[in-house]
Structure formats: C-alpha cells, structure tokens
C-alpha cells in the first residue's frame, strides 16, 4: 500500500493552520519512509528447533549428557513436575535470546549448550559455553553436529560474543532482521526518585520471545508485562504501527515537558505552611517506601532460602535414587547369577547322568566280553527239553553247517576274536566319550565356583547398599519434605506475586515523592520560570490528531485481518471447551475483548481456570493466521509450558488434546509447538512425544 505523506500533512494542517505552517506540520510528522514500513503480509518465515544438546555435571557428580533431535510439528515432553521440562525450554530461550532464566541451582550444572535451529531452509547453531564467569557464545551458520565437534567445525560463525549483553544484542539484531521485527517504543518515568523526566524504552527480542515461550507463571496474563499490545502489533505487522508508535512517543515527551513547566508555574505561590506539609509528606513517603522494600527483600530472602533447601533435598533425592539404583542393579546381578548357576547345575546334572550312562555301558560291555567268551567256549551237552545227551557228532555238525544243533537255526558264536575286537573298540570309544564328558563336568564345576565367588562378592556389595538405604531416610521421606517445601515455595511465590501487584502502588508513592520534592524545590525563593513555548500544547494536539487519524486508517485497512484473527480465536477457544465465550473483538487500540454471558470483558476478567485456554487460543490463532491467510509475523514456533496446570476442567484437557491433534493434522509440517506437561492424559495424543516415567528426570 502506498501512502501519500503530503496529502496526509495537508489534511492535518487544515485543522491546525492557526498555529502551524505546512512545513512545520510536515516537520513534526516527518518520519522518513517509515510510514510504509509495516505490512501485514507474512514473511512466510518460520523458526524450528532441530536439535538440543546439553553438557554438564550435576552437584552429585552425575554427568549430564542430554541430546535430542526434534522434528517439525508438535512435540510433547511428558514428565512429572520439577523434572527438567521448564529448564529445557529455558535453555532454548537462552540459546535464542541470550537471556538466562534457568534456576540458579541447575544453572551451575550446565557447562555447554548447543541449540540447532532453522529459519526456513537455513540452519543455524547457537552454541554457549557457560563454564567461565563470563558467557562465551557463538551463532554459526549451518548445523553443528554436536558440542564436542564445535571446535573442529568448519562452519562460519555469524557472530561470537563474550558477554551476555553482547550476545543478547547480536541475537536481537539477527532475529529482528529475519522476521522484520523492530523495537516498538514507549515512554517511562526515569527511575531516579528525584527525577521527573521521561525515558524512551524499547521492546526487545526478549520481550517478543514472550509470544513464543508461554511460561506457566505468566498464565494469568495474555501478554507479558505492560507491552502486550505492542507485541500483538508487531506480530500482526499492521500498517502504520511504526509511525503511530513513534508519534505517540513524541507526543508523550511533549506532554511531559508541558507538565514540567506547569508545575513550575503553579507552585510559585506556595506558602510556608505548604513547605512544612511537603516536608512531613516526604518523611512519610520515604518511610513507607523503605518498609515495603524491606518486606520485599524479606520475602525474597526467604524464597531464596527455600530454593536452597529445595536444591539440597533434590541433591539428597539424587543420592538416594543413585543408591536405590545401585541396590536394584546389584539385586538384579544376584538374581541373574542365581539363574545362571541354576542353568549350569542343570547342565551339570545332565552331564553327570551322561557320564554315569557311559560308565555303566563300559562295565556292562566288559562283563559281557568276559562272560561271553567264557560261555561261548562251552559246548552244549544236554538238551534242556528232553534231558538227552548231545552227541559229539552233532556238535561237529553244528560247527561245519553253522546250524544250531538244537533248533537248526543259523548259528554263530556270540563272541569270537573279530567280535571281541569290535567290542573292545566300542569300549574305547565309550571311554573317550566319558573322558570328554568328565572334562565338561570339570569346566561346568569351575564356572559354578567362579559364579559362587562372584555371588559372594556381589552379596557383600548388595548388603552394604541395603544397610546404607536402611540407615538413611527413604525416598518417601525426602519426597514428603520436597512436597512440603514446594508448597511453602508456592506460598512465598504467591506472596511475592501479590507484592508485585502492590508495585504499582509503590510506583505511585515514588512518583508522589518526586512530585512533592519538586514542589518543595519550587518553593525556594530563586524560582524564576517563564513560559517558554506557547506552541507546546498545540504541538501535542496536532500529534494527537495525527495519531487518531492514523489509527483510524490502520483500523480501516486492517479490520479484515483483525476479524479473521477474532474468528479463528473464537473457534480455537470453543475447541478448548470454553463455550461460554460467544464473541471476540479486537479494538482499534488492540484490546482483546471476550463476550461472556452477554458482557464484553477483558482477558484479566476471565476466570483463572479459563485464562490459559484463551491465551493458547490467541497464539495458535496468530500462527494459523500466518499459515492460512498469510498474515502476521509470528515465528510459527511456540513453547507451552505446563498447559494443564491451572485449568481444573477435564473438558479442557480433552479439548486441548483434540486441538493439538487437529493442529498436527492440519499444519504439522508448517509449524513447531513444544509442550511440557505433567498431565499423563496428554500422552499418545500426538506422534512426537518424549515420555518420562514417574520420578524420572529429563537429564
């Protein structure tokens, strides 16, 4: 879309010609070519994580060697709470933004991180060396195979930095250029108590990353911090967003200047009583501020102590788990030795039986030879039937005819010399077989005795493990302690969260203190302030007019995009089981309003158990808007940490499961969504999942 700056300037000039010439108007509104900087047409680029590798050593000495390749589409990590899911996601955040939010105890364990990612077809590797006191990190063009091959890798490094802030800045520049992001600005009060000026602040890549990484702790906010609308604007990339933002900042700076002058003028006539009142108020405010900051400090100290305790118990649990593991492994070894021994005993019994059989055959054959030879040498003298003697002639006849002298059947001597040789050979063979089997028996007996030695050794070790486990506290006790500690931590966190709510109050106190100090300063006799810029108010009015005009224009050209976004969001919300919301509207000011029970309400007014669904719906919708309608600039990469944590409604889980399935089916290869959850109900919903057993750590 082309924008006619002259025409626009003339239109504004018409309404402000009493104060400004056309050139003055142009000069006030001029932002170069940036009027055409934004376009809602998608860059089509998408960010995908390809692999993650971690190295380090836990406090108990266990080596961390985590490495996982990840496909496009949805991937679920299903593990119990406090088992490393959030840490894994924070590692990705650290590699992509440079911001390290990993828990302090785990942070100490990690020495190297490698995250390989792609933006469209180009691959990049973010490599961080966390060993030293200062971060050393590089972004490589291409995919590094593994941490150990980084040094030898021939890949081109896009940048290498040796400090966290430098790496953050370089990553921001890189990702901003990749996804056509830029820093939307806003104004904020200077933090120094005695200062009443305004500062310009920029939305960073780390801020925008909040639209990628939906952390469970932020589930009650649609966007992180007060810059949510800016994130949404950047993600939508609607026309004029940049100029509206810059003109708004300009206007706010002028407003601040005007307020300053007014204060100076108005307070010139303050009385002496006023002076003492102001002084008393300063004392009061200072005391209030000091007590609230002490309370905050106290809560933080207590939380930090609890974290330390938690870390110690986790170490203990690690230790006991290790001992348990050793005990189980040793018991398993004992069992397998017993099994092996039983099978050897069977072999031994078989071999012994075979040996006995050979021995018996040898005895029988030897006996047969002796007895056979003896009886074969005897002549038949008498018929056993009739008791008549057998004549010598008949015996001679038997020899010559080889026919039995009693029954006339063929007759052969049972044992003669040649048969004897055959039987002797048989005896020899049987003896050899027996020797062989005896050697086998010896071999098995040796194996059994080796096994017995191993068994005794393993049994000693096993008994030692057992007594160590008996003497120490059980996993159950530690888990109980851990669970009670976690509930304390969560109470303290809640306490701090409430405290954060009171930060706004605190800021008010700080602001009031600054104002009161300023007023007191103005009561000093040397005040000599003159009106220095008559046109200030007029300038503010002109800028406001231009902003309103541009907002209208933006809304007119973008309402189709916003309508589509609302429609997709509504459909997603319904799929997630939130049928009570019947309409969604995105206003000109980018306020998202949800109609529930006939009333339009803001995200914050949605019941706590339903907020996360509304939030997930928004981000899924932004991605869908990009994929389906080619609008917006979301990276199409989303990390949702613990999506089931706050929502008590079982319909929600089913809804989430079916939304995930649906997204996977429709856009599986077009996006990447990581989900970390302890909800076992989400297992087997989608293909890519890493399931960790109860109590198991990710790394």
């Amino acid at each position, binding site marked *: 879309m082309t924008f006619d700056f002259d025409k626009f300037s003339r239109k504004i000039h018409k309404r402000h010609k009493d104060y400004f010439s056309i050139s003055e108007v142009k000069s006030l509104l001029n932002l170069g070519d940036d009027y055409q900087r934004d376009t809602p047409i998608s860059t089509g680029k998408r960010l995908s994580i390809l692999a993650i590798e971690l190295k380090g050593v836990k406090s108990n000495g266990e080596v961390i060697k985590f490495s996982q390749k990840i496909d496009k589409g949805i991937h679920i990590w299903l593990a119990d709470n406090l088992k490393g899911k959030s840490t894994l996601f924070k590692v990705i955040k650290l590699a992509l933004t440079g911001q390290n939010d990993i828990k302090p105890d785990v942070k100490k364990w990690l020495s190297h991180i490698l995250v390989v990612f792609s933006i469209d077809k180009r691959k990049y590797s973010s490599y961080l060396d966390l060993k030293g006191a200062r971060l050393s990190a590089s972004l490589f063009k291409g995919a590094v195979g593994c941490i150990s091959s980084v040094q030898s890798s021939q890949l081109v490094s896009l940048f290498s930095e040796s400090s966290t802030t430098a790496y953050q800045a370089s990553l921001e520049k890189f990702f901003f250029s990749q996804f056509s992001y830029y820093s939307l600005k806003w104004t904020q009060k200077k933090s120094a108590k005695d200062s009443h000026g305004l500062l310009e602040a920029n939305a960073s890549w780390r801020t925008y990353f909040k639209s990628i990484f939906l952390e469970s702790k932020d589930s009650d906010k649609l966007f992180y911090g007060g810059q949510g609308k800016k994130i949404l604007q950047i993600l939508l990339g609607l026309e004029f967003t940049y100029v509206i933002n810059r003109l708004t900042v300009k206007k706010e700076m002028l407003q601040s200047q005007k307020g300053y002058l007014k204060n100076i003028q108005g307070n010139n006539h303050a009385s002496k009583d006023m002076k003492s009142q102001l002084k008393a108020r300063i004392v009061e405010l200072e005391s209030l501020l000091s007590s609230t900051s002490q309370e905050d400090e106290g809560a933080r100290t207590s939380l930090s102590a609890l974290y330390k305790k938690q870390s110690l118990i986790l170490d203990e649990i690690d230790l006991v788990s290790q001992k348990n593991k050793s005990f189980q492994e040793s018991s398993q070894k004992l069992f397998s030795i017993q099994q092996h021994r039983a099978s050897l005993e069977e072999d031994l019994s078989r071999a012994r039986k075979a040996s*006995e059989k050979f*021995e*018996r*055959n040898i*005895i*029988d*054959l*030897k*006996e*047969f*030879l*002796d*007895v*056979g030879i*003896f*009886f074969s040498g*005897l*002549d*038949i*003298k*008498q*018929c*056993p*039937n009739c*008791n008549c003697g057998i004549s010598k002639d008949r015996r001679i006849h038997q020899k010559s005819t080889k026919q039995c002298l*009693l029954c006339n059947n063929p007759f052969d001597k*049972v044992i003669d010399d040649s048969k004897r040789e055959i039987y002797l050979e*048989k005896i020899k063979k049987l003896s050899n077989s027996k020797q062989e089997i005896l050697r086998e028996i010896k071999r098995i007996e040796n194996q059994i005795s080796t096994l017995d030695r191993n068994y005794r050794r393993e049994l000693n070790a096993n008994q030692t493990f057992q007594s160590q486990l008996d003497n120490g506290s059980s996993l159950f006790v530690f888990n109980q302690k851990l669970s009670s500690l976690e509930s304390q931590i969560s109470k303290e966190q809640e306490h701090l969260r409430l405290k954060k709510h009171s930060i706004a109050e605190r800021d008010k106190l700080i602001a009031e203190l600054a104002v009161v100090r300023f007023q007191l300063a103005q009561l000093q006799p040397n005040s000599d302030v003159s009106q220095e810029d008559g046109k200030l108010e007029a300038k503010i009015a002109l800028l406001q007019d231009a902003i309103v005009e541009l907002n209208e224009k933006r809304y007119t050209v973008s309402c189709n995009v916003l309508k589509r976004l609302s429609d997709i969001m509504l459909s997603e919300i319904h799929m997630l089981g939130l049928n009570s919301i019947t309409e969604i509207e995105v206003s000109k000011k980018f306020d998202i309003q949800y109609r529930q029970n006939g009333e339009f309400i803001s995200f914050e007014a949605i019941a706590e158990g339903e907020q996360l669904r509304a939030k997930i719906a928004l981000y899924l919708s932004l991605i869908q808007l990009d994929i389906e309608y080619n609008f917006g600039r979301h990276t199409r990469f989303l990390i949702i940490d613990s999506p089931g944590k706050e929502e008590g409604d079982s319909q929600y889980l089913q809804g989430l499961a079916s939304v995930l399935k649906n997204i996977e089916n429709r856009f599986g290869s077009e996006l990447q969504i990581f989900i970390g959850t302890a909800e076992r109900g989400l297992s087997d919903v989608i293909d890519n999942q890493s399931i960790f057993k109860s109590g198991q750590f990710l790394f």
Partner: protein
Amino acid sequence: MEDSELKLIRVFKDRIRIFLILFVFGEDYKNESEPHLRKVFKTEVRIQKIDFLLRNPDYLSYELMSLAKNRKIPKFEARAIIQRIFKNKEPMMKRMEMEKFFFGAYEDIDDVISFLTSINFIEFRSQRSSTLKKIDKIYFVTATAIEKIDDKLLSLDSLDWYVKRCQLIKKYFGSLSGTQLKANQYQIKEYKEALYGQYIEDIQPMVKAEFAEMFGVELP
C-alpha cells in the same frame, strides 16, 4: 548301544548271575549215587529274593541298616559297607530293575536254568514239598561247572564283584529261607506298594536320609 546288543548283554548277565547265586549259596552235596553233583540249592523263591538283593544295592543297603538298627550286626560294619556301595555308585551302576509279581520280586529264569542245564553246569529237579501243597525246585551244581569255574575266571574284574557281593549277602542273609527273605523285603514300603507287574522303585533317597539320621553323615 543298540537294543539287540543290550538284550544279548542281558542274557549273559542273567546266566552268570544266577549261576553264581547257585554256586556261592549252594551247600556241599555228596551222594555216592550222584557223584557228578557237588552242590545243592533249594527253591526258586530263594533265588529270586537273593537275586533281588544282588540287583538292587539300595535295597541291600536298607536291609543292612535294618540289621544294624536291630543290633543284629554292628553299626560300624553296616556303615562301612553302605558307604562303599554308594561311593562306588553301585545303586546306579549295578542296578537291574525287577518287576513285582504275586509273591514279590520275580523274573522268569527258566531260560537261564535251561541254558545252564544244557552246558551241564547244573541239574534241576522239581518235587512236592513235604506238605504236598507246593512244588519245591532243587538245583544242583555239577562237578563240570566247578571244574570250569576256576579261580582265574572268578578273579576277573567283571565277575569278582558278583562273587564278593554274593558272599556278602550270604554272610548276612544266607541263613534265611526264600520266604523269610521275602518277608523282610515286604517291610519296605516301596517294595510292598509296588503294583503287580510294576517295576519296584529305587529307594536311594530314603536310604540316604535314613543313613544320615542313623550315622550323622551324608552318603555321597
């Protein structure tokens, strides 16, 4: 070994064993009208029962233990014999199963007797008993047999065992008639409870257990 071989071996085993029973257990016989007959042995039942002890070293061991238990022989004597029997693995090496018939262990020995008669080693007669109720079988060992069975033959390893075992059985049970021997054997549960036509079971485990209880040491 093949079945035919095993059968042949068995025929010769039976021949020598039965002959040696008659030879060792036969009493000297002198009758001027029958000078060729030198020894006499009475009743087939006795052959069968002695043969059973010869073929089942575990039962022999048990009976020796019974004698020791009843103080008919010294315990140490029984202990030494039984230990030797088991050390030599005789219950496995020498065992030849026997079936049970109406009157205990029995195996048809008619063929063996016929053979021994044909080679003129024995003579065999049947006669009514004094009560005329049954027929007694009487076996005579001939002078021919005694001539042929010389010391050289008997000292062969394979025959030496039979001779010594027969002598041992004779020493402890030689005075018993066939009926008395049968009565003793019927004291053993496994023997008594064997069904008609069934092989009489091996009692090694029972002998080992009783031996351990009686002598406080395990048999090998």
